């Protein structure tokens, strides 16, 4: 009897894991199979030409470049804020109550849906009379990924062995020098992984920049220009009643999926490569 129960539950567990991994496979396969026919070279090398939204020539280079601009800008801002945040939590706050409080705040900020960051940023834009632009797209995504990044930095920096810090202090290094040259170097693989994951989140998020980045058929030339992004390109093309345009939305899905997959692979390779600088 005991054996039967165990066998039943074990079978259920294996089935569950298959459902989870199967749904990942299904998501990728469905998008790739349905998108592949419309995926042409001009999709990734051209901006929309006249009549693009009626199914005529052109591509979504504007959205690809736009997404890269937005995610890169936002990630840079997020690093500048998140890294010192993590340094503070681990090196300066010590075991004080403040560290607990700020970690709790970080957890809460991580849980806030990206849509709300978008709504918040847009409210501010309305208040100061700003127009939708690359700059605001970057700021909105930065709002949303900074907590994520700070949290992942904090997690990797926490794993740095205390002995390493002690050794650094024993050599007469200040806290700043220790955190810069010892702790951060030791945590580098984790920091890089965190950055790439945050970049991926930034590139994939649509709900936050729905209100703030605008949309345009050209590649932005300044921070004040509106900017197209990949998720929104998919979303808008799907809304079209024309099958050829919808097919392009599927193809755009492949491009977005490919970027996310590449980021995931690169982060694994980088982690391995930089592991050699880590003292175990």
């Amino acid at each position, binding site marked *: 009897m005991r054996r039967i129960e165990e066998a039943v539950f074990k079978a259920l567990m294996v089935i569950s894991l298959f459902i989870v991994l199967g749904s*990942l496979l299904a998501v990728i396969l469905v998008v790739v199979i349905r998108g592949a026919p419309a995926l042409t070279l001009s999709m990734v090398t051209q901006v929309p030409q006249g009549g693009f939204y009626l199914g005529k020539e052109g591509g979504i280079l504007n959205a690809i470049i736009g997404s890269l601009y937005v995610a890169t800008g936002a990630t840079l801002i997020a690093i500048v*804020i998140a890294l010192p945040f993590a340094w503070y939590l681990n090196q300066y706050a010590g075991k004080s109550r403040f560290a607990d409080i700020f970690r709790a705040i970080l957890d809460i900020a991580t849980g806030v*849906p990206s849509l709300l960051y978008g709504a918040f940023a*847009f409210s501010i834009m309305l208040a100061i009379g700003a127009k939708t632009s690359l700059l605001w797209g970057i700021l909105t995504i930065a709002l949303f990924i900074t907590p994520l990044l700070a949290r992942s930095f904090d997690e990797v920096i926490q794993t740095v062995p205390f002995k390493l810090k002690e050794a650094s202090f024993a050599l007469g290094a200040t806290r*700043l020098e220790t955190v810069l040259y010892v702790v951060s170097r030791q945590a580098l693989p984790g920091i890089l992984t965190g950055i790439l994951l945050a970049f991926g989140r930034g590139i*994939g*998020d*649509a709900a936050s920049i729905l209100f703030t980045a605008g949309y345009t058929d050209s590649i932005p030339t300044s921070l004040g220009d509106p900017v197209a992004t990949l998720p929104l390109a998919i*979303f808008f093309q*799907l809304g079209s009643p024309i099958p050829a345009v919808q097919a392009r939305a599927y193809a755009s899905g492949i491009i977005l999926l490919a970027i996310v997959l590449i980021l995931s692979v690169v982060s694994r390779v980088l982690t391995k490569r930089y592991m050699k600088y880590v003292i175990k």
Partner: protein
Amino acid sequence: MVRQKGIISRRYRDLIAERAVLIPAILVSVILIAMVIVFLDKASPIFITQPITTLLFSSSWHPLSGQFGFFPFISGTVWVTLLAMGITIPISILSAVYLAEYAHRRVRGVAQPLIDLLAGIPSVVFGLFGILLIVPLIKEQIAPLAGVNSSGYCVLAGGLVLAIMVFPIVISISYEVIRAVPTEMREAALALGATRWETVKFVVLRKALTGIIAAIILGFSRAFGETMAVLMVVGNVPIVPQSVFDPAYPIPALIANNYGEMMSIPAYDSALMFAALILFVIVVAFNILARIVLVRVYRKGV
């Protein structure tokens, strides 16, 4: 090599850094507080015109005539979220137990990166997947099987897509919590003659229960706020759904579809900010709850 002057400036630099690193921590906190203030401020006009009970429990949504009953949206959110969690909870926990207690190291090595990958897929792609596979499947297979007519864009589609998106969160946190149960406890149970499953059921899961509950709460709050994927497959009709084959209009979809376009009607703007406020409060409350549970779990050393 280091001159005396150098040492002083090094200390000075450290002291400056001590102050400087506080800035980001304060900045993130201030932004969070500013969000509450902005949402409250912009939502306040709607409180004056309508009592909060009408806002929450009335089903009449006629923005042009100034009637803002949020009940269809609230029930839409609840339907979709509960359905998604109903699917996610058993599957995720079983998977987590398998990965933590039974799986071979190699299986774990394959499964974990894939689950991480699932967590990284953008929500628009999930929405696309829903439109391409789940919506037609419901329209042509599942709904006829149940003897109803459905466009496929319905609560069930939203729930299914959302369930897949929440898998990684519940699995990874549950997995961590289960792994944190000390090996000695398992050994003690096994030494008493318990089978592996009995050990898992009576010792490991009981010990990990609070942590798993926290994982579920975090999954809930993620599901609550998810916008694009759900919006793309759920139909967006402001009615109170009567079955899983009816369309729904969850709160995030309402905000995403209308905010920024209805500026000409100030009351509408205010109503949408009220919706944002509801969402914010629920998500923050859930996160605090999960955090309290998790902190307790780890303090007890599981």
